């Protein structure tokens, strides 16, 4: 799993800038976070989101380290929670989850950033934030298919799949027990 994150970080920092549409680039780190949540549940989404966000924080200089980690951790956990509680067929809903999760991640990142004094995130105004959220979400809806395929292949039975944290493997959405009353 660590290798997948490192590989996606390399592709993100080298190729993503060439894919800008309306000045907005895709974000592969949130895509893999959503995949983890959809495949592995709340805990997997939180773990992968934390490390993916931390890796993303290493490549920016104007926002504090940990802001992306916090954002992606919460989004991954939320996606995992929704997956565990309401969704049953993850394949059909993967692009929808990618779109919604990414849009939520952008808005949450800006909100948390403003909370931590990063007012530069609001300089572009509401229209800029909406533009980034929509375009990035559309990119995620498209890219989540190949990234999700790679994630499930690598997470299933891979040696390092559990090193980032428990429950990062595919199909590990468990319910502890169902009590019939």
């Amino acid at each position, binding site marked *: 799993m660590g290798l997948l994150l*490192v590989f996606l*970080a*390399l*592709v*993100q*920092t*080298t*190729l993503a*800038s*060439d*894919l*800008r*549409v309306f*000045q*907005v*680039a895709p*974000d592969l780190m949130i895509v893999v976070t959503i995949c983890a949540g959809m495949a592995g*549940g*709340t*805990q997997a989404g*939180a*773990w992968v989101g*934390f490390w993916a966000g*931390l890796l*993303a*924080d*290493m*490549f*920016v*200089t*104007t*926002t*504090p*380290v*940990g*802001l992306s*980690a*916090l954002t992606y*951790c*919460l989004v991954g*956990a939320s996606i995992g929670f929704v997956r*565990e509680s309401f969704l049953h067929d993850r394949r059909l809903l993967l692009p929808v989850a990618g779109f919604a999760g990414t849009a939520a991640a*952008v808005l949450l990142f*800006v909100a948390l950033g403003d909370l*931590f004094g990063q007012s*530069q*995130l609001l*300089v*572009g105004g509401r229209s*800029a934030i909406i533009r*980034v959220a929509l375009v*990035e979400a559309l990119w995620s809806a498209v890219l989540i298919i190949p990234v999700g395929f790679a994630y499930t292949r690598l997470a299933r039975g891979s040696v390092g799949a559990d090193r980032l944290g428990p429950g990062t493997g595919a199909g590990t959405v*468990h*319910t*502890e*027990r*169902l*009590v*019939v*009353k």
Partner: protein
Amino acid sequence: MAVYRRPSRTRYVLAALVLAALTLVTIDARSNGGGVLSNVRSKVSDVFSPLQQGTHAVLRPIGDFLTGAIDYGSLRAENQRLRDQVAALQNQAVQSASEQAAAQQVLGQQNLPFLAGRPAVTVEVINNGSSNYESSLTVDKGTASGLAVGQPVVAAGGLVGTVSSAGAHRATILLLSDPTFSVGVRLPGSNVGNAQGAGRGQPLRVTVVTTNLAAPTVKKGDVMLTSGLDTEKFPPYIPVGRVASVVTPPGSSEPDITLSPLVDLTQLTYLQVVLWSPQ
């Protein structure tokens, strides 16, 4: 009735991760860019840079193809605009040459630091920055070549940005379109303004600083240069941008000015990092 119970361990894990992230944010925010986490960022950049270079070399054909496909329409329009511009410039060549020679004589007599042959390091852009919240790029040299945080970065045409972080062999350049970037600029009538980035693809916003003088008369198309005042982070007389709009709000004596950067920030390949620091 079926009851679903979520493992309590999940809550503890989530709480621990959120707490860890908040701790990191707090530590980094309080260190103002100079703490241990900034060093970690530099070290990670140094470790990743050879991998990035290799990945970039492999993926460049794909990136070029995708860029061309995405920007095909705008590329055609840009091509035609450049052809028209070349034709117009050829007509101005003779006049420009004589005016430039005169300007060099005047500026040389004033012994301006920026034009007096200050040492500079040529760097190559190795990636254009993929964050949607930051306008930056990475270059192929770092502290081992004399780069340091805060040094101005220029290209043919004018100011590009400043060095925002530097590892041993890689550095991050913060572009002047970034919302955290600001530079003092000279305005007509001995006025001084502050030009601030407003995001990728957006013109800079100029705020007039001097309020005890008559409002500056600025018109569209004027070129603004760095002010180079005592507290400024850039040497004087570096071209910054061309005035894109001047609007004086009702009831205000100071105009709202926007600047378009003179350098095309989307087509940067080679830059000059000026080995200069404010006194």
